[in-house]
């Protein structure tokens, strides 16, 4: 499969629609599963990993997962293509760059369902959705899980549930993450307070690209930590409750900004748009920061309408691997910054985006 064919379209989850999409960018569910009678990936031989890979590929062709999926073996992909899949949120950085041997990912056309093979666990099922859609995502992933399980004997234990390579995932094997855009809580300096409260109730906050990644562009992933002793529906209910609270705080903070410093915010958004549409060199970090301001400006109606999906897409398309694919050549750091600026200028000119 030529990954370049994915380039013109962006995953469904970036549509910028869905419930609460002024704050919630996307919802992601992940299930960790292992196949019985095999060592976990870190202790499996190359031969065993190849066996697992071919068995699972067979199953992908045999069962109905609710949508047709295509398998991409990652081991033989050039580094740029691997990075591309990471930016697309289809594979983890570990699967792309750290792990060795036979491994890969199957995903559907809309890039909403994906299954990583031979990651830390033999199978990592994922469902991505635009906006806040925990129940909907659960229905989909539950079906994918049932489909795979009809042909594969999972490592399951009466007491401990689904067995995983790391005890932090054992039980349901489920991680539910909601990606939220919280610029106003950042500006009003309340974000630390919110995160401290989350940690107290055992929820984790991470940056855009998961574990260990830094939060940029005011994008945060909020996910559950506990996987053992709480049912999936209870975990989802707890996250939903917390997200409702965060939504309320962020919206209050946005209204506060409008009331107390509308002019200053309008100026900040206009300058962000100005920089994005006229810079000749721009780093990925600065782009994220400025896009965050534009996204907030859109939601507060401080800029003329830009389609929400465009800003979400720009977050992804200005990442290193996407940019190099869009430009059709490898670029070093400086060339990349110039190419990014050129890309942004053209995109925003096309849209005729103007500060209000």
């Amino acid at each position, binding site marked *: 499969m030529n990954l370049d064919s994915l380039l013109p379209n962006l995953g469904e989850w970036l549509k910028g629609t869905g419930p609460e999409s002024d704050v919630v960018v996307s919802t992601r569910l992940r299930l960790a599963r*292992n196949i019985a009678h095999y060592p976990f990936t870190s*202790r499996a031989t190359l031969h065993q990993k190849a066996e697992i890979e071919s068995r699972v590929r067979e199953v992908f062709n045999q069962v109905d997962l609710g949508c047709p999926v295509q398998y991409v073996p990652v081991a033989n992909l050039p580094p740029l293509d691997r990075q591309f899949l990471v930016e697309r949120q289809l594979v983890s950085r570990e699967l792309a760059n750290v792990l060795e041997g036979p491994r890969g990912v199957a995903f559907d056309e809309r890039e909403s369902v994906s299954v990583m093979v031979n990651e830390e666990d033999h199978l990592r099922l994922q469902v991505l959705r635009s906006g806040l859609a925990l129940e909907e995502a659960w229905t989909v992933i539950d079906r994918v899980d049932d489909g795979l399980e009809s042909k594969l004997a999972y490592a399951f*234990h009466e007491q401990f*549930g689904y067995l995983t*390579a790391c*005890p932090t995932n*054992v*039980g349901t094997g489920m991680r539910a993450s909601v990606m939220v855009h919280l610029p106003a809580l950042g500006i009003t300096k309340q974000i630390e307070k919110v995160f401290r409260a989350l940690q107290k109730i055992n929820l984790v906050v991470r940056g855009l690209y998961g574990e260990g990644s830094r939060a940029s562009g005011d994008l945060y992933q909020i996910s559950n930590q506990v*996987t053992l*002793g709480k049912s999936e529906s209870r975990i989802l209910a707890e996250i939903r409750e917390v997200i409702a609270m965060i939504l309320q705080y962020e919206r209050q903070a946005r209204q506060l900004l409008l009331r107390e410093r509308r002019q200053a915010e309008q100026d900040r958004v206009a300058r962000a748009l100005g920089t994005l549409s006229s810079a000749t060199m721009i780093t990925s970090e600065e782009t994220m920061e400025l896009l965050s301001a534009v996204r907030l400006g859109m939601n507060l109606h401080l800029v003329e309408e830009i389609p929400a999906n465009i800003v979400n897409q720009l977050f992804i398309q200005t990442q290193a691997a996407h940019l190099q694919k869009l430009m059709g050549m490898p670029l070093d750091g400086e060339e990349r910054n110039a190419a990014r600026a050129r890309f942004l200028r053209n995109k925003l000119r096309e849209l005729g985006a103007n500060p209000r």
Partner: protein
Amino acid sequence: MLCESCGKQPATVHLTDIVNKKKHELHLCEECARKKELIPATSTGVPLNLEALISLIMVPAGVQETDTSSLVCPTCGLSYAAFRAQGRLGCPDDYEAFRPALLPLLERIHRNVVHQGKTPRHATWRESRIAELDQLRTELAAAIAAEQFEEAARIRDRIRHKETADEPR
């Protein structure tokens, strides 16, 4: 006060130990204290068995002392110490092999040690477990017939682990 060990006789032997500023107390009847070799069988002036006393008092009642670092999974060969160093388990059987050490760890991470929620809808995992036990029993018989007793003992341990994993809790 009744004996903490048998719960029947009145406690007449009172032990207090302070380690790292933590006070541990143990109250036993004379019979139990003798059983645990805290008091010599006949009073011939032999001093108290200090080692037995300390090990007894340091282990909370009802918990078997196990040296967790020496646990090794009979299936994949991973030691508990190696797991602690890498943070990743080697195979599904580790959950049984390392059970005494994993339970407190799971309790710390999840504040719970019993799964709630989805279970596999198809019985494939159960059937495969039964098939695997059959296979192991065949291997065991073969090892005994070939007088490979070390191998037989290893297989026997794996069977035991699997059987205990099947018991309902």
